[in-house]
């Protein structure tokens, strides 16, 4: 079981990811709705894994990922992307993301990505 921070600007997606992770035996310790909140919540909660949406207002997922990795090079982050964001996914892997899931996804895929990030 891991302590997970879920970041997405859509409340529905936060709920969907949180429900899936709870079913997979993980504990969702917090949520954030944009990149700025994600960095703040990461520093506050120090989760073992963070799921991070790419397209968000204010500060997007890539910018938040860069800040989180700069603050904690060992951070385990799983990116959530939509179709057509392949170059951003590649960039996030270069920055230090451990894995990614492409929306729309099945709950098992999120659980698998979090498990992989922990391994």
């Amino acid at each position, binding site marked *: 079981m891991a302590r997970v921070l879920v970041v997405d600007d859509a409340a*529905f997606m936060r709920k969907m990811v949180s429900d899936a992770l709870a079913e997979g035996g993980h504990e969702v310790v917090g949520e954030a709705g944009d990149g700025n909140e994600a960095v703040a919540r990461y520093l506050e909660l120090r989760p073992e894994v963070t799921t991070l949406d790419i397209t968000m207002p204010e500060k*997007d997922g890539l910018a938040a990922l860069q800040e989180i990795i700069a603050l904690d090079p060992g951070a385990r982050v799983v990116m959530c992307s*939509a179709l057509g964001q392949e*170059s951003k996914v590649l960039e996030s892997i270069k920055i230090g993301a451990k894995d990614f899931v492409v929306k*729309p996804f099945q709950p098992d895929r999120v659980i698998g990505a979090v498990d992989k990030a922990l391994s």
Partner: protein
Amino acid sequence: MKTEDALLRVATATSEAVRGVLATLAPEAVVQRAIRVDGGIEASLEGLDLPAVCAGIAFVDGVEGGNLLVMPSEAARRLAAAMMGMDPADVGDEPISELELSAAGEAMNQMMSAAAAATGAVLGQEVEIAPPDTRVAQTAEDLRAAFPDGVQTTSADFTLFGHECRLVQLVPPAFLVALQDALGVLPEGAEEIDPLRTAMLDVEVRVWAELGRTRMSSERAVALPRGAVVELDREADDAIDLYVDGLHFAMGRLVVTDEGELAIRLETVGAGPTTPRTPETQKES
């Protein structure tokens, strides 16, 4: 290919991308309807049921443009129910809730991302989008306020749970030019007016660039030693000329490509000197 065909190509590609996402979120609930070139936003708004959820995205990198998706509230609620693992048929006629709107907005976000990717595939370049703007339009005025005016549009209609939905592609002039370039659209009426011109489009021509010229006596020319500097009639930062089979065709700037090769970035086409000549036959400067 004509402009209308090119517009229909991109409208079809984006429509298929949206259907692909919907087929995952709500299998067997989607039926494709008409795809057409509307020519303007007013035509693209006709016949839509209200209230409706509308989501818009703007392309922020690659090319100017965007997509808009309009979905009646009941269809959005049924889609949200399907995404939450509930039975879409159980949805009543209550106003859309915040969580349902978030779910529908997320679905529309995914559809619009797929549509932008399909647009990029047609244009041959990646198209980056800004976060979508999702809102509920209660009236025709609300709906109109969500749409920019003064651009060409295409529409792709489809039904979702039996409700009419519409994907609108915004086609600003810069987008249209990029589309025409990518798909090799001929000037309007070119095929009908001049079949000879069309037939000659495959003929290979010689293209060369000219940095500058000078004149000197033949005595001096044959005596030029290695290392001599021959001044030309152009400044270093002047535009250079491009010729096509002896005809002056364009002017531009010499650039170096990423592969280290010389190239010309055209600045004006059809302007400048018109004297036909070839390197072999030129006799004057």
